[in-house]
């Protein structure tokens, strides 16, 4: 047991320390790739770090004190989310903490009177409504394909990340639909076109910078770092579909995560921004067609035919 605790502490600490580096590097690679897609040379890979350090050097200007507090909470909850995840705790807990972090960001935007931030906040809420069903479906599906046994030999299922990654099932084998659905909503979570409605990384849009319009200097830097944490943890979600406790699948999982990130960057570059109605309808339809159907099949297999038990 004490061995387990040591592993848990190490992986949480590794997340806490390494995630910003990995997240920042991913963001840099993203920008470099995007530039290449567009036939440009692009900024150095370390550019996101320069940006954040620059923001830390700027004069502190805030519209109100509450905003800084909310953004700080967003970072803290994002770190907690990832910590729960890498500690191997329940996926449901992880998802709800993630939502809390998102809500703090929305609160930060609402706390200013800027119409751009307000509209951004509203769109962010719509985006959350769009992706949340699929994220929950993912948790439930992974739960169903992770049978564990209690001391008396009867079957339980588990939401715990640690059980999911150490279970011999490779999730994606049974849940291809759910995996596709998750990749689809990840486009929203990574804030990529066509779904970067509430806050765009690209210049000149009708919302200025949406959610982040009123954030500047250190506050913006904090938000940027929390995105890095978030991105790393979201790729962890992708990883869950591949892990089965063997070293080979760990390598495969990491490679698939990188490919998924590349894919999202690609999608970002070949799409224009859509209206929120499209984002909403499309993600619910995909959740329904890919997610629910897949889940239903697995559910029937497990409950009526005792599959995997």
């Amino acid at each position, binding site marked *: 047991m004490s061995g387990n605790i040591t592993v848990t502490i190490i992986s949480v600490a590794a997340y806490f320390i390494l995630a910003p580096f990995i997240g920042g590097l991913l963001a840099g690679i993203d920008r470099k790739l995007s530039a290449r897609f567009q036939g440009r040379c*692009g900024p150095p890979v370390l550019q996101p770090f*320069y*940006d954040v*350090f*620059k923001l830390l050097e*700027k004069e502190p200007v805030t519209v109100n004190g509450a905003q800084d507090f909310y953004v700080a909470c967003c970072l803290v909850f994002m770190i907690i989310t990832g910590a729960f995840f890498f500690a191997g705790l329940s996926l449901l807990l992880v998802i709800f903490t993630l939502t809390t972090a998102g809500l703090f960001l929305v609160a930060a935007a609402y706390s200013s009177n800027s119409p751009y931030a307000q509209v951004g906040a509203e769109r962010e809420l719509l985006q959350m409504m769009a992706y949340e069903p699929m994220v929950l479906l993912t948790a439930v599906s992974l739960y169903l394909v992770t049978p564990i046994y209690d001391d008396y030999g009867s079957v339980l299922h588990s939401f715990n990340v640690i059980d999911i990654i150490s279970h011999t099932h490779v999730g994606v084998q049974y849940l291809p639909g759910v995996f596709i659905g998750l990749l689809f909503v990840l486009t929203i979570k990574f804030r990529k076109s066509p779904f970067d409605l509430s806050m765009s990384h690209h*210049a*000149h849009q009708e919302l200025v*910078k949406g959610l982040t319009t009123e954030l*500047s200097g250190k506050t913006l830097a904090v938000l940027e770092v929390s995105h890095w944490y978030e991105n790393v943890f979201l790729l962890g979600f992708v990883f869950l579909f591949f892990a089965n406790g063997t070293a080979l699948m760990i390598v495969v999982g990491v490679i698939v995560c990188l490919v998924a990130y590349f894919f999202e960057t690609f999608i970002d570059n070949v799409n224009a921004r859509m209206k929120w109605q499209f984002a909403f309808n499309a993600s619910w339809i995909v959740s329904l067609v890919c997610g629910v159907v897949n889940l239903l099949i697995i559910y029937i297999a497990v409950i009526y035919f005792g599959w995997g038990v």
Partner: protein
Amino acid sequence: MSYVTKSPWIIHYDGSSCNGCDIEVLACLTPMYDVERFGIINTGNPKHADIFLVTGSVNEQNISVIKQIYEQMPRPKVVVAIGICATSGGVFRECYNIMGGVDTVIPVDVYVPGCAARPEAIIDGVVKGLGVLAEKRARLPQELADERARRAESPRDEDDTTEDVITVDVAGGADAAEKGDA
């Protein structure tokens, strides 16, 4: 070393102009010139910007717009006037509604003349601006401390932080205006 020179974010405003310089500024973003390789991003948001690019001259109606954008930018910040219109009023100088160059309203750090200024010249101007930006960055902590001390000495209303900045800036602008008229 200051990171502000490695990641200068830009906001661009086009005043009374023929839009020639305006287009040239945007041309800097294209694959041909690709200013993003210097970490330059064209933000649409003054609160995220470090460098204020102004093209075109100042007329009676856009004075307040230019002032507002300038005041909303957190320090350290630099203003680059692009094209002869922004520098001195250019071909529009004699018009009844034109004040002249941008320096009649806000302090300008770098002038990039030309009609239209070429993208190479614009990039060169921005790079010159980076030097000024680094100097301003070095002075910033002292400035902030002074302001805090001043505010502690003569406390006014609660929310006068931005007003402080505005007073300083308008004074600078007025100075420049006198010079411009002379």
